[in-house]
């Protein structure tokens, strides 16, 4: 036989063959193919290659293809794997518990956060026509270049929408929240609701319990109420037999009767539009003809587009609609935006939506991912650390003929067993924790087990954690040599240790990020709540006055001041800490009449500055003795700056056609949220337009409130007495921030906890491995402290590295967040020191504790076997 040329068959088909072919047949088949190939290639190599490929392809058929090898095909092996997994889990109870615990907490936290996010994303999405519902916004372009966005739209705009634009299907006016007195028999309460067009119930899908949503508001004296109100005024029985339609409620100070034409189910937290009653907007317009003007914005407007119609052309056509009808006196442009998007993107910047709650959702989503990663890393680290105890078992299995593939399968079966257990326990934990979490997050959360997304999500989590944690031991351990693994002197390769250390650093970096985040959010919240707002909000009660009571203001004030607990009283046209009545009509010497400046206008009585403890910077306060002061004005610093006078005092100011003098400048006080700069303000001395009484109390507040209630009821019979504390009302404006900061705090603590669990597991493992070393060191006279510090250093080092990495990252992230606030706390170095110290101390204690325990063991016990 002549020597064969060394020709290689095409490698790709060969690799394919090796991949699919039954291992039992492979060697022979491959040999046959090679023999054939060599014979053929003596004639024509190219043809031989082709034939080789063809042969391989023809071999790809059942009988030759390997069977899908999984332990599930061999129930006996699977049973063995499960048994061994359970045995080793039981043998190292502490480790198994630690391992499961961190994964359970991690998955449960992640699930809770995802439920929260899911709930947020669903808000306002329940309307059947959601895709076609839009809201109208008004962008007021100021001369300073700033754009103020408001939802108050001139009422004639809706007529134009309905009549001139065929692509608009229906449109509705939606008024502000209004408190009206409701009377039915002995029940007298203030109830919050809105005036709206009849179309509101065909545009939005608020479910009706009785009545016809399409015609409920057709009659001007009809009212639609929520199930809550129905129960309150007609008792629980209304649901069963009593037909509420046609029943009347006496409403408002004019005591007009309204006929109930429908009852809707209160949408609760799944709707951003909340109200307990709706009265036709026509009723309001009839009494307030000022709204019927292109110059005023009395209502918000929502509309539906016809199916298939585009928004953009309508936006284009309506952009200048206000300007066209007001002769471009002020530059006010229309902006149309999806209704349901507004809940998550409610902040406007330059006339366009720019963030809002969506930021919280992103933050929490990142936290959820962080926690899951931290938990998975734990699981992986502990599994790898523990698995090196099993080298002897692997050795025996190998001797008995186990292939690497089988050993890998074994580790995957084990890790999946753990991850499935963890997911099941986590699901139970979520059930238990859900009511508490709903309470904290101010939501009604529920776990919908019929939701396929939930199961898909759980499946993914199981798969990811199972694969991640099984991956490393499955890859590494079977490759140990039999002899050394049987002898038990296998040193895990340093790459494994490096990987573990890297992961620990990563975990700690994430935890530090969360801790810094928590501290900064906390600090900012305290800053907001305790900031000097420019007025004194402590011990201040405010009372919304009925028209009747406001008419008797002088008497009311005198009566209030006679109560010993009442120090001062003032009346205003609104809450100064949350004020939004403005006008663009103010004129002063030197102002270009075309210049557009929107200035807040507040009406108060003489005692406003004194009662509120507002500082006077220039000039004087209103003087009760001077009758002329009723036409004079106070301004704040921002207005003074806009006017640009060196000393604005005694300059003339015209507002709504009334000219008076500026008699003083007050220090700025906050009139809206901390996200925004302080607005300009003009204060008018006009007690007749006030409807809120502010009472400064001292001493026993409860006693004072009782007396105030008595006085109020006496002067204002037939009205319920309601009051609010100014500081609490202010804090409630930051409720979502508070909720967020609570949630972030909880999960930051959880993340640190999980990280420490992992560290505890790792250090106890390494303490166990180094028992002999510790024994020898003790024999040579090392003190316990020295041993603990020596051994702890290897982990403390990791935490320090994590600190170095995480701190700059957290500075960046938190500065981004703080930038949302116009008024924000300084970024203090102390935050890092605290965050660093917390992590370091917790980490060191965790590690030290375990090593301390190990170092106390008598060396005789550990070295006896040598």
């Amino acid at each position, binding site marked *: 036989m002549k020597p*064969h040329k060394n020709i290689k068959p095409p490698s790709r088909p060969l690799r394919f063959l090796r991949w699919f072919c039954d291992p039992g047949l492979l060697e022979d088949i491959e040999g046959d193919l090679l023999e054939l190939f060599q014979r053929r290639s003596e004639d024509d190599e190219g043809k031989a290659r082709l034939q080789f490929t063809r042969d391989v392809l*023809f071999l790809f058929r059942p009988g*030759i293809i390997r069977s899908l090898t999984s332990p599930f095909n061999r129930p006996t092996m699977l049973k063995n794997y499960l048994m061994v997994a359970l045995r080793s889990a039981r043998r190292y109870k502490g480790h198994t518990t630690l391992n499961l615990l961190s994964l359970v907490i991690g998955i449960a936290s992640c699930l809770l956060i995802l439920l929260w996010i899911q709930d947020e994303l669903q808000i306002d999405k329940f309307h059947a026509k959601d895709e076609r519902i839009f809201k109208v916004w008004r962008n007021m372009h100021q001369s300073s270049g700033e754009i103020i966005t408001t939802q108050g739209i001139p009422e004639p705009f809706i007529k134009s929408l309905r009549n001139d634009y065929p692509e608009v299907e229906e449109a509705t006016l939606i008024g502000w929240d209004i408190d009206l007195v409701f009377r039915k028999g002995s029940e007298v309460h203030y109830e919050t609701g809105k005036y709206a067009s009849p179309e509101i119930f065909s545009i939005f899908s608020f479910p009706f319990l009785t009545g016809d949503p399409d015609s409920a508001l057709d009659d001007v004296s009809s009212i639609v109420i929520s199930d809550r109100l129905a129960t309150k005024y007609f008792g629980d029985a209304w649901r069963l037999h009593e037909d509420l339609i046609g029943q009347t409620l006496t409403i408002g100070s004019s005591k007009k009767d309204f006929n109930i034409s429908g009852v809707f189910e209160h949408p609760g937290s799944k709707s951003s539009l909340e109200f307990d009653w709706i009265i036709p907007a026509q009723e309001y317009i009839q009494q307030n003809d000022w709204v019927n003007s292109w110059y005023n914005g009395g209502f918000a407007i929502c509309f539906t587009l016809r199916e298939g119609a585009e928004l953009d052309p309508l936006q284009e056509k309506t952009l200048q609609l206000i300007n066209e009808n007001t002769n471009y006196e002020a530059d006010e442009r229309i902006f149309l935006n999806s209704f349901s998007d507004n809940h998550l993107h409610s902040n406007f910047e330059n006339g366009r939506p720019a963030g809002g709650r969506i930021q919280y959702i992103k933050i929490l989503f990142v936290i959820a991912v962080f926690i899951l990663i931290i938990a998975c890393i734990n699981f992986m680290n502990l599994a790898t650390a523990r698995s090196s105890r099993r080298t002897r078992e692997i050795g025996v299995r190998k001797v008995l003929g186990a292939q690497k593939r089988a050993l890998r399968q074994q580790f995957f079966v084990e890790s999946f067993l753990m991850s499935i257990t963890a997911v099941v326990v986590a699901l139970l934990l979520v059930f238990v924790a859900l009511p508490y979490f709903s309470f904290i997050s101010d939501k009604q959360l529920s776990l919908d087990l019929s939701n396929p997304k939930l199961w898909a999500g759980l499946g993914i989590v199981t798969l990811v954690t199972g694969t991640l944690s099984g991956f490393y031991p499955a890859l590494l351990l079977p490759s140990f040599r039999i002899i050394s693994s049987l002898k038990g002197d296998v040193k895990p390769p340093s790459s494994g240790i490096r990987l573990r250390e890297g992961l620990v650093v990563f975990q700690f970096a994430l935890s530090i990020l969360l801790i810094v985040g928590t501290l900064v959010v906390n600090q900012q919240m305290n800053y907001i709540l305790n900031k000097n707002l420019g007025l004194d909000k402590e011990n201040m009660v405010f009372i919304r006055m009925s028209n009747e009571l406001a008419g008797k203001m002088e008497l009311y004030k005198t009566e209030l001041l006679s109560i010993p607990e009442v120090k001062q009283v003032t009346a205003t046209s609104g809450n100064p800490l949350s004020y939004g009545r403005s006008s663009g009509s103010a004129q002063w010497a030197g102002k270009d009449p075309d210049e557009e400046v929107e200035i807040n206008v507040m009406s108060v009585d003489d005692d406003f500055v004194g009662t509120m403890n507002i500082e006077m910077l220039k000039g004087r306060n209103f003087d009760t003795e001077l009758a002329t002061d009723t036409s004079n004005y106070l301004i704040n610093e921002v207005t003074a700056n806009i006017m640009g006078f060196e000393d604005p005092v005694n300059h003339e100011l015209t507002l709504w056609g009334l000219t008076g003098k500026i008699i003083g400048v007050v220090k700025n006080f906050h009139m809206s949220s901390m996200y925004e700069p302080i607005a300009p303000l003009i204060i008018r001395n006009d007690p007749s337009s006030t409807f809120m009484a502010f009472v400064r109390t001292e001493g026993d507040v409860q006693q004072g409130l009782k007396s105030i209630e008595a006085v109020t009821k006496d002067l204002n019979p037939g009205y319920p007495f309601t009051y609010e504390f100014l500081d609490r009302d202010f804090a409630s404006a930051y409720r979502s921030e508070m909720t967020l900061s609570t949630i972030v705090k909880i999960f930051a603590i959880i993340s640190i906890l999980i990280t420490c669990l992992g560290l505890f597991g790792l250090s106890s493992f390494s303490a166990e491995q180094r028992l002999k070393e510790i024994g020898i060191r003790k024999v040579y006279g090392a003190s316990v402290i020295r041993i603990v510090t020596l051994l702890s250093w290897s982990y403390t080092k990791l935490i320090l590295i994590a600190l170095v990495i995480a701190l700059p990252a957290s500075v960046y992230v938190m500065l981004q967040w703080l930038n949302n606030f116009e008024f924000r706390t300084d970024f203090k170095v102390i935050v890092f020191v605290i965050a660093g110290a917390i992590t370091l101390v917790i980490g060191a204690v965790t590690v030290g504790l375990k090593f301390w325990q190990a170092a106390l063991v008598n060396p005789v016990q550990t070295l006896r076997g040598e």
Partner: protein
Amino acid sequence: MPRPHLGEFEEIVLLTVAVLDEGAYGIAIKDDMEERLERNVSMGAMRTALKRLEDKGYLKSKLGEPTAVRGGKRKRYYTVTHAGREALQQVMDVRKRLWQAIPYTSLDFRFI
């Protein structure tokens, strides 16, 4: 116990293995079949048949010594088992009986 069915192609493979006796391995079987049948035999078809025959218990195999020609891969030698021989015998008996049952004239085409 009913005997597993023996397909036509399987029968030929089984017969070839019997013919080759000691030297029945992949290529040799393929070559022999191609020579006798005067047609191409694909590796895939032959391999599947061999595997099926082995599963049915008509063939048994063992690995030989590695040779340089085949890139160090060992050959798998096939031998017909007792059951295989019985199966062949039975097929032949069936055929034989069928041949004998044919009326003499219908095959006597020389007179057509």
